[in-house]
């Protein structure tokens, strides 16, 4: 809901010692005029303090107390009370203990522009401008979330880096020569180690890093030392070559059997396909249309015919596989023995490797004939190695392997396994963190891109309005291309085209008043673009640097382009004030005529009745001195009003110093006016005036009766009654409106017409 101000009441606040209310009607705009030092900025201060909890001018250390009027009544409150057309109103009291949420709306919306801080936004650095804009636009929350995402991304980057360092440390421990570490190589290494120690050989890295396997190794370490090196060497069995298996294989692998092998292979594939898809209507091999049942029968018949050959082939394959496993096992055992002997300081040459022709996978496809002599040579080499090993172990020192050595080796194995486990864990952790980082980066980059896009949309919107408003203030001047644009990652800046040259920022080419116009345009554009709840704008002395022509342009802009806003324009320029009033007759007007320490700002509106009420209130609370001060002020206000309304002749005084006339002068003025316009009335009133003059001397002079206690209270009461009687002479008892001399008897009547002046 858009809200407007209806009534502002300040009590003992800044330049207001007592109470001052500003009536905004039902939310009308108002022009407020006052010379310097008359307290008009107190009105802007009150609104700033009410909506933001502080006054920027007083935000520096040691100035906060100045929210209160220095001469405020002891024990009286300092407060600002605001009535609005919605929910923004309320009462703020010093010291201000309102929660920060109270200022949420004003923190987001634009409502106050002061002459003294006019160029603040223009002069901010590009980063400060961005922050200010972010605050106004509510981008802060969006920006905070971006910072969260950035923080997450940064933390994950650090974690990935730390995980990488940990992984490299693990790899260095596993591979001191900096060669690449692979699971396969590590497993082979451990397997060899295990065989040498006679512990369970892990079949995979997963098994190696399992708790069960680790427990097994620990058990081996704590328990029996295992078979000795001598026993292991003694148990070596030289493999023998199964010549029958090689011959059988060579028969089925012979080239002349190739056609049958191919046929057999093809038929087996065909049968498998027919079994998988029994309802095919075409041959799965050649694609011709066939009857599936007939095709299956034909395949089976052909297979039966080749059954004998198939059986021979399978038998040959199995025989060859057994031979291959036996030869490979012989080599593996000897490698383990070699490793164990090496760890025990016994030098044995490495065992021979299985010939390639005997180690290949046994398969029909591409199978070649095997030379039985290769197998024989290999077996002889193994037998020779066995003899060498036996001799080496026999000649080695007796204490070559002790139970301590074995325990140490088992401990080394356990350490190695633990290192492998740590390496795998570090690799896994790094992978996990890399995936998380990739996701965090995707989200962050998408977020940042959207944020940039949105900022550009906003800036484009503001730029158009700023340019439009500036053109209203400076029509026809050679300045174009006014934009608010992004500058670096976290900055925005104003830019203009000046005689065809781009200027960003524009400070180098624009005068102070042009920069101030730009600031006013930016302020108004921000409010137009982004204000949702606040529908009023306070402009406090913003025209100081403007010449008369541009003051007129601003008055025109405000009254014509912002007629759907409530504007509170405070100025010390009477011409600007009159200009606004002429252009917008519907606006309210308020002239602050003077300021005094005791009474605060005085306006052209007389407040004698209200001040009289305050005096009675003080008296009811036992404050005779306070009541006397207020009574004197009420009398002064009433006599001034009578003098003005009856056009009393008073001695000429330069300037607008009527507010500072003595009470004696005012009494004389009242008598002169009555003598001229209502002589009979003067006779009636004269005793009252004399009594009031005496009251002023004796009772309403606070210093004179300051210590007279209860008797002073009664005298003040009497004086108050007399002032009320004098006030009542000019007020219709029926309609309560004033009645004065206005030239003709008809015009000198009250609103209801019952009372006339002079009274009959």
């Amino acid at each position, binding site marked *: 809901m858009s809200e407007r101000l209806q009534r502002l009441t300040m009590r003992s606040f800044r330049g207001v010692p007592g109470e001052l209310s500003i009536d905004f009607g039902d939310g009308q705009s108002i022009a407020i005029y006052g010379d310097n030092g008359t307290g008009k900025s107190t009105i802007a201060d009150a609104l700033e303090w009410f909506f933001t909890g502080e006054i920027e001018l007083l935000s520096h250390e040691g100035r906060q107390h100045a929210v209160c009027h220095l001469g405020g009544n002891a024990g009286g409150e300092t407060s600002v009370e605001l009535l609005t057309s919605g929910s923004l109103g309320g009462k703020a009291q010093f010291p201000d203990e309102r929660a920060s949420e109270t200022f949420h709306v004003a923190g*987001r919306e634009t409502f106050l522009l002061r002459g003294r801080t006019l160029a603040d936004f223009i002069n901010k650095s590009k980063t400060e401008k961005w922050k200010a804009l972010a605050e106004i*636009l*509510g*981008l802060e*929350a*969006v920006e*905070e*979330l971006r910072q*969260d*995402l950035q*923080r*997450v991304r940064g*933390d*994950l980057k650090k974690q990935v880096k730390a995980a990488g360092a940990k992984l490299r440390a693990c790899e260095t421990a596993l591979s001191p020569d900096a060669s690449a570490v692979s699971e396969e190589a590590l497993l082979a290494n451990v397997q060899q180690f295990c065989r040498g120690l006679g512990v369970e050989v892990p079949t995979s890295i997963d098994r190696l890093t399992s708790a069960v396997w680790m427990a097994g190794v620990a058990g081996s370490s704590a328990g029996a030392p295992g078979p000795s090196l001598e026993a292991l060497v003694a148990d070596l069995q030289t493999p023998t070559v199964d010549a029958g298996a090689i011959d059988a294989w060579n028969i089925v692998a012979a080239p002349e059997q190739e056609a049958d092998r191919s046929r057999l292979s093809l038929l087996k594939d065909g049968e498998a396909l027919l079994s998988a898809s029994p309802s095919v209507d075409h041959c799965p091999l050649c694609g011709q249309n066939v009857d599936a049942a007939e095709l299956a029968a034909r395949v089976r018949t052909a297979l039966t015919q080749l059954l004998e050959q198939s059986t021979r082939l399978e038998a040959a394959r199995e025989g060859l596989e057994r031979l291959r496993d036996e030869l490979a096992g012989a080599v593996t055992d000897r490698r383990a023995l070699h490793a164990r002997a090496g760890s025990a300081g016994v030098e044995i040459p490495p065992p021979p490797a299985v010939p390639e022709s005997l180690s290949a996978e046994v398969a029909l496809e591409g199978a070649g004939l095997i030379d039985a002599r290769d197998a024989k040579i290999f077996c002889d080499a193994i037998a020779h190695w066995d003899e060498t090993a036996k001799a080496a172990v026999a000649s080695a020192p007796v204490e070559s392997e002790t139970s301590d050595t074995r325990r140490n080796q088992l401990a080394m194995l356990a350490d190695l396994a633990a290192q492998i486990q740590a390496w795998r864990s570090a690799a896994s952790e790094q992978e*996990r*963190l890399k*995936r*998380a980082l*990739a*996701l*965090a980066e*995707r*989200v962050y980059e*998408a*977020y940042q891109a*959207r*944020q940039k896009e*949105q900022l550009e949309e*906003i800036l484009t*919107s503001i730029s158009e309005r700023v340019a439009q408003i500036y053109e209203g203030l400076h029509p026809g001047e050679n300045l174009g291309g006014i934009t608010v644009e992004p500058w670096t990652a976290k900055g925005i800046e104003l830019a203009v085209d000046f005689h065809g040259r781009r200027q960003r920022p524009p400070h180098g080419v624009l005068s102070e008043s042009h920069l101030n116009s730009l600031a006013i345009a930016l302020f108004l554009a921000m409010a137009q*673009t*982004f204000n*949702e709840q606040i529908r009023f704008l306070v402009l406090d002395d913003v025209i100081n640097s403007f010449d008369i022509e541009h003051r007129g342009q601003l008055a025109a802009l405000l009254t014509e382009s912002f007629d759907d806003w409530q504007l509170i324009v405070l100025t010390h320029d009477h011409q600007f004030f009159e200009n606004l009033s002429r252009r917008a007759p519907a606006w309210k007007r308020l002239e602050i005529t003077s300021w005094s320490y005791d009474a605060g700002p005085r306006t052209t509106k007389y407040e004698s009745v209200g001040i009289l009420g305050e005096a009675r209130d003080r008296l009811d609370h036992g404050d005779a001195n306070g009541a006397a001060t207020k009574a004197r002020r009420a009398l002064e206000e009433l006599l001034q009003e009578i003098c003005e309304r009856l056009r009393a002749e008073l001695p000429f005084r330069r300037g607008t110093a009527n507010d500072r006339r003595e009470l004696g002068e005012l009494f004389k003025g009242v008598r002169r006016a009555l003598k001229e316009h209502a002589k009979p009335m003067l006779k009636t009133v004269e005793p009252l005036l004399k009594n009031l003059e005496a009251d002023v001397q004796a009772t309403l002079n606070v210093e004179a009766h300051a210590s007279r206690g209860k008797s002073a209270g009664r005298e003040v009461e009497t004086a108050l009654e007399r002032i009320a009687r004098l006030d009542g002479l000019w007020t219709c008892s029926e309609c309560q409106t004033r009645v004065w001399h206005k030239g003709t008897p008809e015009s000198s009547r009250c609103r209801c017409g019952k009372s006339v002046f002079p009274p009959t």
Partner: protein
Amino acid sequence: MQRPNPREFLRSVVEQMDELPEGFAERLEGLVELPAEKRSDAIQQLIEESAS
């Protein structure tokens, strides 16, 4: 012009992103309402869980 709401803003971002983990966008949106001092930790935890 409407001020951006962080939750809606985030939604507009994640809606444009392909192949996010199941339920990630909704859970991330939910974290926007957390107090500022807890938010980044919660986001990091969600991202790590989702990437696992």
